[in-house]
C-alpha cells in the first residue's frame, strides 16, 4: 500500500477520557513521519463494552454511528488492538443479517489499522528515532495478539528504540484479567488473574510496562498502584514519542 495522504484518527474512548497523553503521543509520532492527520471530534465509543457484555442492540447503534463518521476516511488508525478487533471483525458479525450495512462495515473493516500495524505494515517503518533509556517489559494484549495476529510489529518497533532494555516477562501473552465488564462483575476472578500478571511484571525487573492497549494497561496500572509498586504503565506510542 502507498503512503496515505491523510490519516484519520480513531481514538479509543479510554484514551480520549482517561489517557489523552497516549493520543497526543500517537499524534507526535505520526506527524514526525510527515503524515497529515484528521480527527473527527464527534466520535465516541465503538461499542465494544456493550458487545462483549451481550448488548448487541446498543453495540449495533454504536457501530452505525462509527460507520457514519469514519466511512469517508482514507485510512483509519487507532491506538488500541481491542477496538480495531471490534471494528474490523465484530462489526461484520453485528451486520451479518443486514446486507446494506454489511457492505459499509466491510469497507471500513478493510481500512482500519492498529497503530503499530500501521507503522510497520503500511508505512514500512521500523524505527522512529525514539530513545528511552529504561528497562521495559511488553504485555501482548489478547485481542491484538490472538485475534488480530499483531505481535511482530510492536516488538519490532520496541527493538528499535535506542538505549532501551527490553526484558521479557513470563507469560507476556497471558491475559491480564481485564475483559471489559468482566473486571467489574467478576472482580475477584479478574483480580486473581491480574495478580499473576503483576507478579510476572515485577519479576521481570522492568521499570515500565508497555503495550498497545490502554484497557489492559489501565487494569495493570490499577493493581500496581493499589500495591504501591513503582512501575509505570506507558502505551507504546508514548515510548515511540520519547527522544
Amino acid at each position, binding site marked *: 500500500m502507498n503512503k496515505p495522504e491523510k490519516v484519520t484518527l480513531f*481514538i479509543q474512548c479510554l*484514551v*480520549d*477520557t*482517561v*489517557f*489523552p*497523553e497516549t493520543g*497526543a503521543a500517537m*499524534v507526535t509520532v505520526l506527524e514526525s513521519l510527515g503524515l497529515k492527520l484528521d*480527527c473527527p*471530534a464527534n*466520535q*465516541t465509543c465503538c*461499542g465494544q*463494552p*456493550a*458487545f*462483549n*457484555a*451481550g*448488548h*448487541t*442492540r*446498543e453495540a449495533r*447503534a*454504536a457501530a452505525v454511528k462509527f460507520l457514519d463518521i469514519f466511512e469517508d476516511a482514507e485510512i483509519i488508525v487507532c491506538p488500541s488492538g481491542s477496538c480495531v478487533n471490534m471494528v474490523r471483525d465484530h462489526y461484520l458479525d453485528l451486520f451479518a443479517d443486514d446486507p446494506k450495512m454489511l457492505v459499509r462495515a466491510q469497507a471500513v473493516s478493510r481500512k482500519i489499522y492498529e497503530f503499530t500495524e500501521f507503522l510497520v505494515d503500511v508505512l514500512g517503518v521500523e524505527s522512529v528515532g525514539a530513545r528511552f533509556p529504561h528497562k521495559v517489559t511488553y504485555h501482548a494484549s*489478547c*485481542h491484538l495478539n*490472538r*485475534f488480530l495476529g499483531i505481535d511482530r510489529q510492536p516488538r519490532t518497533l520496541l527493538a528499535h528504540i535506542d538505549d532501551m532494555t527490553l526484558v521479557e516477562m513470563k507469560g507476556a501473552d*497471558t*491475559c491480564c*484479567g*481485564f*475483559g*471489559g*465488564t*468482566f*473486571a*467489574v*462483575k*467478576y*472482580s*475477584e*476472578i*479478574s*483480580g*486473581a*488473574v*491480574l*495478580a*499473576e500478571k503483576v507478579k510476572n511484571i515485577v519479576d521481570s525487573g522492568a521499570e515500565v510496562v508497555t503495550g498497545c492497549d490502554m484497557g489492559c494497561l*489501565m*487494569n495493570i*496500572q*490499577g*493493581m500496581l*498502584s*493499589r500495591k504501591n509498586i513503582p512501575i509505570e504503565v506507558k502505551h507504546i506510542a508514548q515510548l515511540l514519542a520519547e527522544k
Partner: protein
Amino acid sequence: MSTIAPEKYKENASKNIADPVLQKALSGLQERLGPATENLYNSLPEGHKMRTEAHQFRRKAIDNLDVLLSTLVDKVRGHGGIVHFAKTAEEAVEICKKIALDNDVKTVVKGKSMVTEEVGLNLALEKEGIEVYETDLGEYILQLSGEAPTHIVAPAIHKTRREVAELFTEKLGTPYTEDPPILTRYARKALREKFLKADMGISGCNLACAETGHIVTVSNEGNIRMSTTLPKIHVAFMGMERIVANLEEQQSILRLMSMGAAAQEIGGYVSYVGGPAEVDHGDGPQEFHLIIIDNGRSKILADPEFREMLCCIRCGACLNVCPVYGKIGGQAYGSPYCGPVGAVVTPLLFGINNSADLCAGETLCGACKQACPLEINLPRMLLALRSKLSEGDPDWDVQPKSKGENLIFASWQRFNSNRKVYDLLLGLMRVLQHLLPAKQGMISRLPWPLSGWTANRNMKKLAPKTFMQQWREKKEKKGS
C-alpha cells in the same frame, strides 16, 4: 461425583482462589500441559492444516449426523451389538438400569466417561443396590473422597500425595505411605478385585467410526480396556455427536485429541470396540450395548450459532491455557464440563439462565480457541450466549438476565450516540470524581456499578481535558 450447580460460580471460584494447594496444582498443570501441547501442534508433520482439516471432518460429521449414526448402528448390530437411543438423561439411565437388573448385575466397573457423569448414572445404579467402581485412578480417588473433579482429563490434580495417602489408609485400609508408585499399587490391587468380580463394565466413547462400526476409547492406564473386556456385559455410553465418517478421519482426530488432552502423540491405549465376542474371536464381553444419547444435543444441532460446539471432543486442552480456569479450577463451574468448554456446553445442556455466570465469567482472551486441537471458536459462542442473556430468547427459554444492566447499557447508548451529551456527562463525572477517595490521581473506591473494580485495584481519574478537547484547542491555535 458431579452435581449440576453452575449458579454457585462466584462463590466456588472465591473458595478455590483462596486455596493455595489448588492454586499450585492448577498452575503446575497449566505450565506443564499448555506449552507441551502447543509444541506438538507446532511440530505436526502435516503442518497446521491438519487441525483445520480435522475441524472440517468433525463439522462434516455433525452436518451428516443422521446418515453416520444410521451407518454406525447397522454396523454395530451386524457385529451382534445391541443399540439403544436415549432422548434424555433419564432414558439413558433407565436403559442401563434395565440391562443391569435383567442380568442380575451386582458390581459395575467403569472406565472414565464424561457423558455418564452428565446423565448422573452412578447414583441411579447405586440406588438399585449395585456397587459402582470408577477405575480411572483419578476418578477412583474422587469417588473415595466424594469430591467433584478439578479437570476433565486430570480429575484429581488438586489432591496432594498426603491427602491420597490418608484417604487410602482410611478407605482401603492400606498401610500409610506417601510414595506414589506404592499408592498406585494399592489402588491397582483394590481395583483388580473389582474387575474380577464385576458383572458389567461401563465406558464412554471418545469417537465412533461410522464406516467400521467401532467405538474408540483412549486412555493411559488401560483400565477402560479392562472395563470393556473383562465383565460379561459391556455398556458403552456415547453422546450422539461423537462420530466421524471413516478410519482416516478418526485417526487424525484421535491424534489431535491426545495432543490436546495429555500432550501425547497418541494415548497409551486406543481401543476399538465393535461388538461382543464372536465364535471365532473369543475376546470381549458376551453382550455389547451401545446407548446413543441426545440429552439436548439435537437442540444444539438445530441452532447454526452453536452447532460448532458439537465438534468438541472433550480433550480439555482449553482448560490447560485458560487464565480464568487456571485460578478457579473445575469445581467452580458446577458441572461435569468445566473450563472454557464447560462455559459453553453447560448452558446449552442444562439451561442458559441458571448458567449465566458461566457465560459471562470469562475474559474472552481467545487462548481456548488457540489451544483447541480443532480450533473451535469458543469466544464466539460465549458472546452469542451473552447476547441471549441480555436480550432473551424464547427458543432457548432465556429470560433477559438483568434489567438493571440492560438499563445501564441503554442509557450508555443514548449518551454515546451524541458527543455533546457525552461531553456534558463527562464534565459532570469529572466534578463528581473529586468526591471519591483518591491518592495521586488514582481513585481507590468507586461507587456501584463499578465498585468491583476498586475491590482490588485503583482507577486513574478522568483527565482534566479529553483528547478531543485538546485536539480542538490545538487546531484553533494553529488556525489563529
